């Protein structure tokens, strides 16, 4: 895909330029977390603990990969449904998460929190996991290895194709 090339972490200036529908190629580091990891991180925050994952400046990708073959950093790696994370997202955004990546619409609360925290929500194409895995150059488990496919990962991406789905003004593609 063609599109605006952006390196992570995201700055305020870059977030300002992103508008709904823009095609973007992301390069840099992302944190991978989905349902079970969100629940645990959220519960840690609620009980007053330091979150076990650094949320400040993070880009969170909602994904649970298939196992990697020996010669690959990761298996198939497409987005999962973001709406299931809506319950946790406003809190995560208030703690410094700059962007989330997934598929599907977000709740009104999440959209509001995106505007309030000057963040952005990107959509990746669902069911495109083989192709997207080719944009991931490294991957390691950073937290909750017992969760298997739902463990928290730090991945490095290169020209990872996404579309701006909710921009910092709150307008949404859905």
């Amino acid at each position, binding site marked *: 895909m063609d599109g605006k090339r952006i390196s992570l972490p995201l700055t305020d200036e870059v977030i300002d330029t992103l508008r709904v529908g823009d095609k973007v190629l992301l390069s840099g580091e992302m944190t991978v977390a989905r349902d079970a990891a969100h629940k645990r991180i959220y519960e840690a925050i609620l009980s007053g603990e330091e979150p076990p994952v650094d949320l400040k400046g993070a880009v969170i990708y909602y994904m649970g990969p298939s196992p990697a073959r020996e010669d690959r950093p990761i298996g198939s790696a497409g987005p999962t449904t973001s709406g299931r994370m809506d319950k946790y997202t406003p809190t995560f955004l208030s703690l410094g998460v700059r962007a989330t990546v997934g598929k599907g619409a977000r709740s009104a609360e999440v959209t509001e929190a995106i505007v309030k925290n000057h963040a952005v929500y990107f*959509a990746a194409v669902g069911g495109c996991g083989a192709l997207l895995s080719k944009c991931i150059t490294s991957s390691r488990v950073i937290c909750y290895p017992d969760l298997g496919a739902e463990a928290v990962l730090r991945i490095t991406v290169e020209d990872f194709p996404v579309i701006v789905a909710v921009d910092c003004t709150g307008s949404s593609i859905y």
Partner: protein
Amino acid sequence: MREVSVKTLTEEIATAVMWINFNLEPDTASAFCRIALAERDPVAREVMEQLAKNLEVASKEQIPICQDTGMAVVFLEVGQDVHFTDGDLYTAVNEGVRKGYVEGFLRKSVVSDPFDRVNTGDNTPAVIHTDIVPGDKVKVTVSAKGFGSENKSRLFMLNPADGEEGVRAAVLQTVREAGASACPPMTLGVGIGGNFEKCALMAKHALLREKGESAANERDARLERELLDEINKTGIGPAGLGGDTTALAVNVETCPTHIAGLPVAVNVCCHVNRHKTIII
């Protein structure tokens, strides 16, 4: 009486679960390219091109088409003149699923209990449906159903007075609520009639139809065409990002029902509609 070793089923099912996770039916990639060319919206074109490329990468490099390699659903049509040997049939089916998911580097997405949610580690158990039919063959259809779309499936117990209009409204409502989460372009399996569980099973079974096939009777085939047309007018589009292609097919199955009811089930499947049939 024909003897069939359940070990044959284990091997065939293991091969099939791997195959369906790396390959869709032949020509799907070129069909996606044709859709891309026909889309008026540039984002929709881009999405369809990505989906076509994704299929090529998946099959060439044996990377699952989608990371959600699904929950295995196995339909068995067992000829009544078959005698199974070498062990228990369902254990053999699950052994095939286990072997395929482990050896194929497929994701293990099954938890042992809806509340405790401990992963079983090998994607078993499969959901198994068995029919006894005349003859001495075993027809095995293996599918891998992703849950982004499964979660968006719906069942409606309509009143007879709701008629075809009610069914259309139910299907359209399901599609609208599914949106991007079901990874469009979707295939819709629609079961109409029967009772509560029968219509759900027909809806699932309808998803297994081969590409391009329509319902056997003309009324159902017309309903399929008209529903597809209406669904593609919703503008949800590929990946739910807008466009002309929201569904690839609507497959309707109907059967007798009760004087007081009109059950309708809509099983939503994403663009990764994985299934394969083997006859033993």
